[in-house]
């Protein structure tokens, strides 16, 4: 199930910080794939979050500017108060359209656009969260033949997000954070 995957896209909200920092701390500095993070965050706080993640990460983390190309071996974090969209041509686009699921960035938009562009070359991973954002995006990942993974709801601080995804689409794997880490590390091999 890991063969051919070139992009890792992760969504999360309430309760996902511990999980995401654990994942980032285990990924080696020379990990070759791009990892795209869409995490709910405070709209008006532009600094602090990326620095907090960077403390745990060996790979460089960047907040993409509009139309920035997606490069291998980097972690990209959706900027505060912008939707992060993947464009044909392998670059990012930002948008200030309305909140989706009360969120900007909205995980649904990142997953859906990634699914349309990356198709079966991506894995979408949904972590802990307290609303339904990302569920439709995960369905789009599945429809476009990408791999879908949710964090085991029993392990989540807030289980609504992974459970919502599980309700409306076929989830390939329900994993603990440790299993998610193992999966991500196996992809390039």
């Amino acid at each position, binding site marked *: 199930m890991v063969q051919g995957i070139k992009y890792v896209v992760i969504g999360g909200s309430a309760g996902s910080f511990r999980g995401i920092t654990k994942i980032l701390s285990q990924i080696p500095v020379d990990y070759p794939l791009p990892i795209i993070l869409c995490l709910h965050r405070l709209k008006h706080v532009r600094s602090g979050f990326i620095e907090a993640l960077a403390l745990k990460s060996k790979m460089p983390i960047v907040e993409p500017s509009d139309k920035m190309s997606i490069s291998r071996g980097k972690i990209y974090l959706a*900027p505060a108060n912008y939707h992060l969209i993947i464009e044909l041509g392998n670059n990012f686009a930002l948008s*200030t*359209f*309305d909140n989706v699921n009360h969120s900007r960035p909205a995980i649904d938009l990142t997953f859906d656009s990634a699914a349309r562009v990356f198709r079966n070359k991506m894995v979408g991973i949904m972590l802990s969260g307290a609303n339904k954002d990302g569920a439709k995006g995960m369905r789009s990942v599945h429809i476009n033949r990408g791999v879908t993974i949710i964090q085991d709801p029993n392990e989540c601080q807030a289980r609504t997000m992974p459970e919502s995804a599980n309700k409306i689409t076929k989830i390939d794997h329900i994993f603990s954070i440790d299993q998610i880490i193992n999966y991500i590390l196996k992809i390039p091999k």
Partner: protein
Amino acid sequence: MKTTLSILQYRDIIDAINVTYGINLKQHAMSSLRQHLLMVMGKSKYSNPSLVVKGIKEDKQFFEQILSCLYCEHISLFRDPAMWRILKSNVIDQLPKSTQLKVWIPEVSQASDYYSLLIFLKRINALKNAKIAITDESITNLDKCRAGEVDSNIINTSESNIKRYDATADLYNYIKQSGRKFYVDKSLLKNTYIQKGGVLDINIPFKPNLVLFRNKMIYFNQVKQQKTINQIHKQMLGGGFFITGVKEDISNFEIKGKFRIHNKEEQIYKRNF
């Protein structure tokens, strides 16, 4: 039923807009414009893609709906409060004392930056002597600006933002409620020059020394982004300031000889003399 739009249908719509109204949206970023069209279609009687082209050609109101929120819908006033503080200390205060402030806001859209600017200038006693031009393709947007109408959905966030910009500021000193609607104080709206037209096709009657164009270029493709940078350079006074959105980094474009970075964090550029 979920509204959908294939790439071919999308192209037919863009062609119909160009042929019928002479407005070229071919250089808008496709993913955002497609998403926007789907949203407008979903709220209209033209939810079926095969009817949209007909709607565009025959129903001007429907077309205005598409045009009026091309860039954004609910963007609060004083978005990125830090930028407004920097605007005072690093831009306005750096202009020579004798210089009249001349501001241009192209694609004024839902007017968030326009209303924020009016309040900002009023608070620093610079509104009376400033010249302001706002332009947009949409008549609906320009009419709303003339009336000073503020989207009621953005009031709460705007109230928080203005406090983050300046803890002593009170939004309701500048914005009044009338029924269900909110309006900017009429006295702030005086002396604004309003003209219909897109950023690439317009000449305003003065050369601005400040251009606010935040979070608009994200809706253009890279070809139109470069054209826009060139056009704004052409329209501006030497030594003036050009401000884009905090994630609209234009330093990778051909700006050598045109602009240099004045404040990287807030994406403020200074036009060369």
